[in-house]
């Protein structure tokens, strides 16, 4: 009798388990997806809209196999008044190409009208901000650049060395995308001078850069960039570079419009050789435009 009763109970249990298989399929997939996400690392993308914050580099790299032609202008000072048409009569320009060798390695070169400079750089991403399996709070890149001034020597009678016109900049870039709209990066920078203007000037200028962006719509963000030079390690008479601008994305391209007190577009000219003072109205209007070309064939 007890055997039969137990049999009944087990039978009921059995059919109950069979019933339990009628699951909500959508819920089942959702749970599975959640499980998957935990085992995958999701890298944070688009911390900034483009590879330059304003003057300097952002944490972003040029995509592998992508060639990016960048043309940048800085006009004259707004306080030139109507005579200079608020600076628009004068323009300093840099053009250059950036190329993404791998997703983490970008190299580029450029030519500036300001002091007839050539510049080259490499940027390598060391860490990528991520969530999921690997949790990494920040992205970190290193950037190194070399610049050469090719103006005619002011005094050809004395012995002039080519090496005296070389400049190097080393930068560590640490960035975090705090939310979809807000990203901040810090850029400790050293600019090395083989030859400095004054004997009392240091050969290594040390600066801490800080920059960020705040998106104000899906396609427009406000950017700011500031380089604080350590007072004991700066060239005399220089000021700190401060720039505020907009990134405007228009179907695949990013236009950058900004106001700044730095006329140069290489690390050495904006980090360590800015002479303008915002307080006195030494403000320049400028823009960067870029055009990308895919060199590598897609699969």
């Amino acid at each position, binding site marked *: 009798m007890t055997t039969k009763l137990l049999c009944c109970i087990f039978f009921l249990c059995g059919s109950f388990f069979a019933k339990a298989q009628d699951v909500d399929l959508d819920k*089942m997939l959702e749970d599975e997806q959640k499980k998957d996400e935990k085992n995958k690392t999701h890298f944070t993308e688009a911390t900034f809209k483009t590879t330059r914050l304003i003057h300097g580099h952002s944490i972003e790299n040029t995509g592998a196999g*992508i060639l990016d032609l960048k043309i940048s202008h800085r006009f004259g000072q707004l306080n030139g008044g109507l005579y200079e048409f608020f600076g628009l009569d004068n323009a300093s320009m840099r053009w250059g190409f950036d190329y993404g060798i791998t997703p983490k390695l970008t190299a580029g070169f450029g030519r500036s009208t300001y002091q007839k400079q050539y510049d080259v750089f490499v940027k390598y991403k060391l860490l990528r901000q991520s969530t999921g399996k690997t949790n990494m709070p920040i992205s970190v890149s290193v950037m190194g650049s070399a610049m050469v001034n090719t103006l005619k020597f002011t005094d050809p009678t004395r012995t002039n060395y080519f090496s005296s016109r070389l400049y190097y900049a080393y930068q560590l870039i640490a960035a975090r995308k705090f939310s979809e709209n807000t990203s901040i990066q810090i850029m400790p920078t050293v600019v090395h001078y083989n030859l400095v203007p004054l004997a009392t000037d240091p050969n290594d200028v040390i600066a801490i850069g800080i920059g960020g962006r705040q998106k104000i719509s899906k396609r427009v963000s406000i950017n700011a960039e500031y380089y604080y030079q350590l007072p004991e390690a700066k060239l005399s008479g220089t000021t700190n570079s401060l720039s505020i601008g907009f990134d405007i994305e228009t179907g695949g391209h990013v236009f950058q419009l900004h106001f700044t007190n730095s006329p140069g577009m290489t690390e050495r000219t904006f980090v360590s050789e800015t002479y303008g003072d915002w307080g006195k109205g030494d403000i320049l209007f400028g823009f960067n435009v870029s055009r990308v070309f895919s060199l590598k064939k897609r699969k």
Partner: protein
Amino acid sequence: MKFLPSLLLSFFLMAGSEQSKIYTTNTGQMRFRSEAPLELINASSKELKGAIDASKKTFAFRIRISSFEGFNSPLQKEHFNENYMESVKIPEATFAGKIIEDLDFSKTGTYAIRAKGMLTIHGVEQERIIRSDMEIGNGFIKIKSSFIVLLSDHNIPIPRVVKEKLANEIKVELTAELIQK
């Protein structure tokens, strides 16, 4: 205690007779294509998840938006995720519902079926009937389907500057092989 082994046996027999009617996959393929006058855009993913319950004719599909690869540049992929699909806020697209036709899943063969359900893309639900070819085999179901998704149906606006580069009509194709659990 002689009854115990026979009890357990009967229990297992019962559990065994209730074979699962659920077919699943994690590696379905999905492609989409935008054919605008000035630009063609292709992208695909191999992370389509799917499940079909043969006993109830219900189904569910789900895909992670950021798993789509391809595009004409890395920047385009970024814009796809950031500006159009908003994949951080809305990470997945889903389609779940029921097969309209009466199907005998125990009979192998190829059938043209209609799947009726809620298609959720960019967080916007649309009731859709999607035609699909379904091959029922021994322990597996193969699905092949192509359909159109209108961006305007899912609250994905096309900015004026890319009107000529992005089609409102997106062609979607999928193939998946679901295995019986």
